[in-house]
């Protein structure tokens, strides 16, 4: 049953009127309601494609606490000085109005999978299917001193773009000319595998121009650089010789906030500016939904539908998914579309795609202009029931300005796809 224009307008008006504080969207003549928790790359994409591919017959409500979308991709360039954070911030208006998506700016407080209800600080919503796209949550069990807000202002993670990114940038600008920037990289898996190394490159780019006597110490919990290793190693040697001291197998065991001093199993390192990227797990809404069933960190899903293996009618997309797949923005959108397509098929009584195929392209900048890629096509392996990288994928031969341009085109197009 197609939704007519009058209903559509009623929806849009309803969404505006009811955005807060009342949350009781009338059930309309649709094939069902999908509630999407999270308006990041994964959640926003799922919402848009559900509306597009169902031709408006599925009611979609997104719950997102933040006013703006802020892109993590390209946010390391803010540290390098070639981007301003405002260039990475977007309103959700076009996404909402173009596709008739209902939007609730609120925080999820509880999820009841029995009654299919999501509770928020100012109301509740029922769903036929739920998509949880919560991104990541930080784990402070091993680093309890970093738990508080004040501690995270002194020692930023800057692993969710926004005020944290600006905070780290300001600290770098205020650092003494011969200061030491220390970055801690958590054990994989974490959001954006090459991200820490791109960050090191961007900080080096900034320091080389403004504080060439400064040093970078990278304490990596992993045995080696986890993504684009050869490319980063060569770029650091060529572009920033003598500046970056990379130390593998260096997990933090303690952080002293006041003195910005960290301890690993082997040594004590004092920083002038300290950036600790904490270990990560599926975001809080996934924990509330009871779908975090792998190592108490990640969500196991069926890769044909992204439905949870432990909770019916709850789908998980993006960084929270347990998979041998990079936790990238492009990956999040690819997963979100497979999930949206499967839900549309299910609600239409159509067969789903038994063999999904999708692409992932991820660029990292080593200067303000030069970037390099890692790119793969992933295909569903019916025997293993997982997505497997196809032949032919890999990384750039070398960073280049041409790929720096491509990375900008990537950003412009993915923002257009996700946000309009």
């Amino acid at each position, binding site marked *: 049953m197609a939704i007519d224009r009058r209903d559509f307008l009623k929806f849009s008006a309803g969404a505006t009127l009811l955005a807060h504080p009342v949350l009781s969207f009338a059930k309309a003549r649709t094939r069902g309601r999908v509630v999407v928790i999270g308006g990041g790359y994964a959640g926003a994409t799922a919402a848009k494609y559900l509306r597009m591919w169902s031709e408006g017959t599925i009611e979609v409500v997104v719950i997102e606490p933040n006013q703006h979308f802020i892109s993590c991709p390209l946010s390391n360039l803010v540290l390098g000085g070639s981007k301003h954070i405002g260039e990475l911030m977007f309103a959700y208006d076009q996404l909402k109005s173009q596709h008739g998506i209902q939007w609730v700016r609120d925080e999820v407080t509880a999820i009841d999978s029995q009654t299919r209800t999501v509770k928020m600080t100012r109301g509740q919503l029922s769903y036929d299917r739920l998509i949880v796209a919560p991104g990541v949550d930080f784990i402070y069990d091993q680093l309890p001193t970093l738990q508080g807000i004040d501690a995270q202002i002194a020692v930023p993670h800057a692993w969710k773009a926004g005020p944290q990114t600006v905070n780290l940038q300001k600290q770098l600008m205020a650092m003494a000319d011969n200061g030491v920037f220390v970055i801690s990289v958590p054990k994989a898996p974490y959001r954006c595998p090459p991200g820490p190394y791109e960050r090191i490159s961007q900080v080096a780019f900034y320091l080389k121009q403004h504080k060439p006597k400064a040093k970078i110490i990278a304490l990596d919990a992993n045995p080696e650089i986890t993504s684009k290793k050869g490319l980063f190693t060569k770029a650091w040697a060529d572009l920033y010789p003598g500046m970056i001291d990379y130390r593998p197998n260096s997990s933090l065991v303690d952080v002293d906030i006041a003195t910005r001093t960290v301890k690993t199993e082997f040594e004590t390192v004092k920083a002038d500016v300290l950036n600790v990227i904490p270990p990560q797990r599926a975001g809080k809404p996934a924990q509330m939904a009871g779908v975090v069933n792998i190592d108490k960190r990640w969500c196991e899903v069926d890769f044909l539908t992204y439905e949870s293996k432990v909770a019916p009618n709850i789908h998980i997309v993006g960084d929270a998914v347990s998979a041998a797949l990079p936790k990238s923005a492009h990956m999040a959108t690819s997963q979100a579309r497979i999930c949206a397509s499967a839900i549309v098929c299910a609600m239409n009584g159509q*067969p789903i795609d038994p063999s999904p195929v999708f692409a992932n392209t991820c660029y990292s900048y080593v200067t303000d202009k030069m970037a390099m890629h890692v790119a793969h096509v992933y295909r569903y392996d019916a025997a293993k029931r997982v997505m497997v990288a196809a032949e032919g994928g890999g990384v750039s031969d070398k960073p280049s300005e041409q*790929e720096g341009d491509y990375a900008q085109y990537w950003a412009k197009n993915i923002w257009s796809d996700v946000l309009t």
Partner: protein
Amino acid sequence: MQKHDMTWMLLISLMAFGSANAEDDAIHIRTLAASCAACHGTNGNSVGGTPVLAGLDQGHFTSQMLAFRSGERASTVMHRHAKGLTPAEIEQLAHYFAAQPRTAAITPTPVE
């Protein structure tokens, strides 16, 4: 087996028994084509920099992708994608993108 699994199994077996028809292919190709959007825009309507795939001549799309796939046409990144696809998928993508209307893709405006 839980009830929800059975529902999905039914949908999958529907696919398996009904030999690949146009509708099934369409479902497979729409998600594959959509994963090109990160660089080429929604339904191939690029906002700039990369080629617009919407409405692109089918033969041209296929020949270029096959050339990326064989290495005959040099590229920075496209050979990675072309090599991961089957010739049949390239044909289907060519057909899919040729059928997409060209629209003015919207570049979202940053807040500041």
